[in-house]
């Protein structure tokens, strides 16, 4: 086990709404989780459950018509939602970086790869000269296993393969040695053999520079191999969180159990695959009950009328499900939370 490190990120009851002409989409319905230094937390869940919105909200990148309506994002004790925009801009890229799924969409097509990596350095450290920044960028590319790094640094994004582009992206985001890296599906657009390469270099580099990682992925296999802890999201809230071993081997929330059973690995071909019945509910109504209750085989009366709190099953393993009622609840939030305009 790792030494328990101090708290780096504390997301408390985060709510995000998107206001359209007629309706309000409640994308995040009270997301809470904590991330310690040097820890890798996986955020799992299906399309539309709010994984990416959570990442964007932490960086305050939710644009109109979306807005963060409630909650706190404490980064090293400071509430990011209360920072001024210039302070926030200073933080992004230097303290918290984010890798997106589609590397080619995130790279500037008319700037050479190496220059884009160097640019990140120059923005956050004015004392650097262009030359040293470039040298450090090339060094970074080499440490990510890019063959012939000086030549690759001179290429434009369209000349790179998907795997190379993602390496450039990772170099760009880690060259400033951020304390927190948010990786949103970093390998989902890549082939398996390239995915394996990227995961290896990413893991090595993360260890080297001691970055905490929030890894968003729908691939539970990738999660099993990379993360220390896993948080499972469903319709805008975290339904189960705990050490990766516990959550994947002994899941306690019916949704997590269902999700793991739907994966066709090691299912005999003559057996039908398990599938969770029904559909993901719409996010148009703020929740008044357990969002999974309509699809849950073990739902009881209480599940349909009340939102389950998070129960503590054991140290660090929390499950938001009434099946575990009677267990201690996760302590009431320490500070009163204020509504945000």
């Amino acid at each position, binding site marked *: 086990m790792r030494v328990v490190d101090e708290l780096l990120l504390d997301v408390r009851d985060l709510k995000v709404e998107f206001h359209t002409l007629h309706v309000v989409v409640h994308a995040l319905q009270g997301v809470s989780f904590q991330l310690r230094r040097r820890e890798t937390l996986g955020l799992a869940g299906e399309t539309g459950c709010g994984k990416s919105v959570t990442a964007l909200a932490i960086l305050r990148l939710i644009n109109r018509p979306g807005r963060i309506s409630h909650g706190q994002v404490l980064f090293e004790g400071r509430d990011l939602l209360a920072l001024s925009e210039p302070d926030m801009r200073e933080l992004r890229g230097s303290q918290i970086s984010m890798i997106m799924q589609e590397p080619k969409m995130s790279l500037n097509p008319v700037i050479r790869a190496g220059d884009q990596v160097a640019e990140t350095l120059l923005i956050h450290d004015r004392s650097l000269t262009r030359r040293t920044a470039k040298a450090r960028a090339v060094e970074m590319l080499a440490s990510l296993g890019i063959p012939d790094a000086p030549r690759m640094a001179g290429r434009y994004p369209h000349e790179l393969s998907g*795997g190379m582009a993602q390496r450039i992206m990772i170099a760009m985001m880690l060259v400033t040695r951020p304390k927190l890296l948010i990786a949103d599906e970093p390998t989902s657009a890549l082939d*398996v053999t390239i995915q*394996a390469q990227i995961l290896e270099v990413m893991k090595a580099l993360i260890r080297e520079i001691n970055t905490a990682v929030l890894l968003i992925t729908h691939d539970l296999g990738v999660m099993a191999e990379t993360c220390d802890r896993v948080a499972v999201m469903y319709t805008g809230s975290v339904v189960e969180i705990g050490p990766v071993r516990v959550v994947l081997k002994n899941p306690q929330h019916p949704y997590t159990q269902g999700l793991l059973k739907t*994966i066709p690995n090691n299912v005999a071909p003559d057996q039908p695959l*398990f599938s969770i019945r029904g559909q993901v509910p719409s996010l148009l109504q703020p929740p008044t009950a357990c969002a999974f209750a309509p699809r849950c085989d073990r739902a009881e009366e209480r599940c349909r009328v009340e939102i389950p709190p998070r129960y503590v099953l054991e140290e660090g393993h929390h499950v938001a499900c009434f099946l575990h009622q009677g267990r201690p609840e996760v302590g009431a939030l320490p500070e009163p939370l204020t509504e945000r305009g």
Partner: protein
Amino acid sequence: MADEKRENGQPLLEIADLRVHFALREGVFTRRRDVVQAINGVSLRLRRGEVFGLVGESGCGKTTLGRAVVGLAPVLTGDIRFAGQTVVGLTGRAARERARRIQLIFQDPYSSLHPRKTVRDLVGAGLKFHGLAQGYEIDEQVLLMLEGVGLGLDHLYRYAHEFSGGQRQRIALARALVLKPELLILDEPTSALDVSVQAQILNLLKELRRQFQLTYLFISHNLGVVRYMSQRIGVMYLGHIVETGATEDLFLRPQHPYTRVLLSALPSLDPDAPSKRQVLAGEPPTPINPPPGCPFASRCPDVRDICHQQKPDLGQRGGEPTHLCACHFPRLEQPAK
């Protein structure tokens, strides 16, 4: 077992030494023409009622192979025979009949459905085109088919954008199956879907195959899905089939080094037993003017001199006559477990 029955069956689809090349022009004034050798001598047979899985990474030619079967890719040499008849270069009525009997399901149900047509028009268009039904018969057959894929009357007059990814893939399936095809080419049918929706669609595909006695060419990069769906598998690399065999045989006793790497790259769901991942150096070479010799030679962990000079044939290497492998130095030992 059903194996015996299949052995006796005529091949429904037979591909013989197929080559598909695309010409690329570099610039407006250059004479030099590069050639993308997308498929470079692929042979395979599908028996009626069988599911053949085709796996490989982006650019290996698996999609092109599927498209060549329905006449959407230019065949340079080789033959594709469907139910005993060649389907290369068909035109007119014969091409239309082929289009009815071989249906293609695309990966992305968000772009394969016309956004301004209702489900009734989308699913019924083929019936109209092939003259299989008219007027209210179209509605009847469309509705029947929709019910077969788990949709219903209240979906009939809705537009594609009103549906989720899984439902759209059901519409695409209904559109294909309403024409009573014999062969379905499924090109990554669940890659754009979430796992829980993927499970529903895979179950539906199995059910439909039983119900309509379909044959599937199942193209995917997801080994777990292919293993669950297919009876036989072909592994493609750079326009070649490098290994093919019965699913379990191939998974338990992979012979080709590339197959072994692919299998080892499958992430393990058990944090206590991480997969013993073989990380390959480098990336697949481009299929533009590939070097002679074995296509995998540039990344192969077991490469020797001969691999760079001589292309290995696809043939039996181990004890199993249906298990073919194209490698000079296949690994034939028994599985460790």
